[in-house]
C-alpha cells in the first residue's frame, strides 16, 4: 500500500521508498525511515500535502512524495 492511500489515523509501518535518492534522504532525516511507524493525520484540500505523525512529530509531505512510499498496516 502507498502512504498516500493509507487510512487516516491508523498506524502504518514504512517498508521502503521508491524513486529518487533525494526524497529518501530527506524523509530519513525527518525520521521517516523504513521500519518506523507513522500515521496520517490530515489531508490539505485540492491535492495539497498530507500531514503525517511520526512519533509525535508532524511532517507535511507533498502527495507526489507520499505516493512513492510503500507502507503496511500495523
Amino acid at each position, binding site marked *: 500500500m502507498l502512504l498516500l492511500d493509507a487510512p487516516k489515523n491508523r498506524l502504518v509501518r514504512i517498508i521502503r521508498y521508491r524513486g529518487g535518492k533525494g*526524497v529518501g534522504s530527506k524523509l530519513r532525516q525527518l525520521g521517516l*525511515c*523504513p521500519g518506523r511507524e507513522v500515521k496520517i493525520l490530515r489531508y*490539505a484540500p485540492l491535492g*495539497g500535502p498530507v500531514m503525517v505523525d511520526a512519533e509525535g512529530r508532524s511532517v*507535511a509531505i*507533498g502527495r507526489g512524495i507520499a505516493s512513492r512510499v510503500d507502507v503496511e498496516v500495523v
Partner: protein
Amino acid sequence: MRIALIGQPNCGKSTLFNQVAGYKAETGNFPGTTVTYTESKVRVMGEVVVVVDLPGTYSLAGTNPAEREVIKYLTSNDVDVVINVLDASHLSYGLTMTVELLELNIPMVIALNMMDEADRTGIRINVERLEGMLGTPIVPMIASKGRGIQPLFIKAYQIGQQKRLPSQPKYSYDLERYLEILRHDLEHVNSHLKPRALAIKLLEGDKEILQDVAKQEPKVLSTLKTLHDSLKHERGQTPEWVINGERSGLADNLAKAVIQQGKRHITFRDKLDDILLHPFFGYIFLILILYIFFELVYSFGGLLETPLMGLFTQVETWLLSFFDNATGFFPQITVALIQGVSGGVAIVLPYLVPFLIGLGILEDVGYLPRVAFLMDAFMHKIGLHGKSIVPFILGFGCNVPAIMSTRILEDKRERFISAALSTMVPCAARLSVVFGLVAFYLGPVVALAIYLFNMFVIALTARILSRIVPDESPGLILEMPVYRIPTGRTVFNKAWWRIREFIVEAWPLLIVGSVLLAILNYINVAQYMNALVRPLSWILGLPNEVGVPLIFGILRKELSLVMLGQALGSMEFGDVLTPVQMITYAVFVVFYIPCLATMVVIRKELGGKMMWQIVGMTTLIATLAGLLARGVAEMVF
C-alpha cells in the same frame, strides 16, 4: 577554548545560543532558519571561551553544502568540545544524529533540551541510564527558560579541558568487520577525520572524501569496491542504507531503553491544528489572521505617520526661516537632509516596527509552516511550492525580509523564482503610491483593482518562469513545529535585530539619496534624466517629467510619489495628471525595478547575475503591465 553547538532544526539550539550570547542568532519556529554560523565570546569558569552556533542539520551525511561545512568545522582542530542539543520530546530522531556525531570521535556533551515539552507529552527519560549507554555526559535543560545552562557549559568546559573522547557506537558484527578492513588501508591517510569515521563516510559513498583519499592511497578504491559489492550482496541494500539503518536502529534501541511513555496530556495546543488546518475553516482563519495582522500594522503606522510628518514639516519651515532665499543651495540641501531623516522616522519605521513584531509572533508561534501546508496546492497551480508563500506574505511589508526569507527554500531555482516574484509584491512603500495617488483621487475601488491586477500578473509570471526553469525538486517535505507561546524577549530581540539592520544599512542610503537629488536638481541635470527615460514614459503616455521620480524611485519607492509632486510642480495630482496617467504610473511603479535596498539584498543572497536578471525582468513586466493598464483605463475613463 572553542565550543560548538550542534543539533537538528528546531531543537532550541539558537535559543540556547542567544541565552548565553545575548541576541546574536535569528531564531524562528521554522525549520532551518539559521543558515550561517554565529560566534560569540562567553565567560565560563573565569575563562573566555568562544561559542559557535552551527546551522541546524538533520544529519551529517554531507549531502548538501551546509552539512559538509558542519562536518569540516567539527573535525577541524579548532573545536575543543561539541554540545549536541537534543529535543527531549523527540528523542529517537535526535539520537540518530548523536550516533553520527559519536562516530566522529570528538569530545562531546549532550544538552537534553525541552524537558518541559517532554513532560507535557508524558515522556520520562532515564538520563543516567542514557549517559551510561552513550558514554557521554548529559545535562537536562530548558533553554527557553534559561534552566540548566550554567551546568551545561561548566560540564562542556571540563570535558574540553580533559579532551575526553566519547565511546564509539557499536554496529552489527558484519558491518564492524567491513569497517575494520577498510580502516587498515586508511592508517596513513591524512584527513581531518579519524580512520574509523573516514571508513564509515567512504562506505557511505561520500564522493568528495573518496576523491581526496584516492589521491593519497589509490589502493583504497579497489578495497572499497570489493567491500561495497559484498555488503550489498549480503544485505540486499546499498551500504549507504545499511549504515543509515544501523544508526537509526541503534538510536531507536537507545530511546526505547531509556524512555518511559506516560500518559500524554492532550492539551489545547494539540487540538489547534484540527481548527487551523481544517480543510475549510483553516482558510477562513488564514484570511482572518492575515487581515488582522495587516490591519494592525497599517492602523498603528498611520497613527504615527501623520503627527511625525507634521513635526518634520514644522522643523523644516523653522530651519528655512534662517535663510534669505529658500531656493539657494544650502537651504535645498537642508530640506533634502530633513526629508531623508523623516522618510526613515515617519514613513518607514511606523510600519516596519509593528510589522516585524507581528511577524515575529507569527513565526515563533509556529504558524508560518502551517501557511505553507495550507497554500501548497495553490502554489503548485502556479508552479511553485507551498513554502514560497512565506516570502510573498513578508513582501507586503518590505521586500528586504522577503528576499532574506527565501533562505528557507533549498532549491536554487525555487529561491530565484520566489525572490523575483516577491520583488513584485507591493511593499508598504509602494502602498503609499497606490493609496496616495490612485485611491485618493480615483477612489479605493481602483486601488483594489490595482492590487488584484498585481496578483494576477505575479501568478502569470510564476507560470511563465516555472516553464522556463523546470522544476526538479520532488515536492514538499516540511516539519510542522509544535505550537509555542513566544516569549516577549525573543520577539522584541528579533524585531530589534532587523530594525537595526534598516537603521544602519538602508537609512543612511535614503539620506544620501535625498541629498544627491537636491544637488542634481540644483545643477539642473534633471532634464537629461528625463530624456533617458523618455522612450518609456512616451509609450506609456506619461508626461516627460516622470523620468526623475522614476529614477529616484529606485533608491526609495516613496520618492516616486514625493518627487512626482516636485517634478510636476504641484502636489495636486488631479490638476496635472489624467486618471489614465495616474493608473498607468501607479501600475508601472508597483512592478518596476526593486528598490536599492532590495537589490543589495538580492545580490548578497543570490548573486549579482540574478540581481541583474531580476532588474531586467521587472522592467519588462512593468512596461507590459503599464501598457495593459493604460489600454484598459482608456476604455473605462
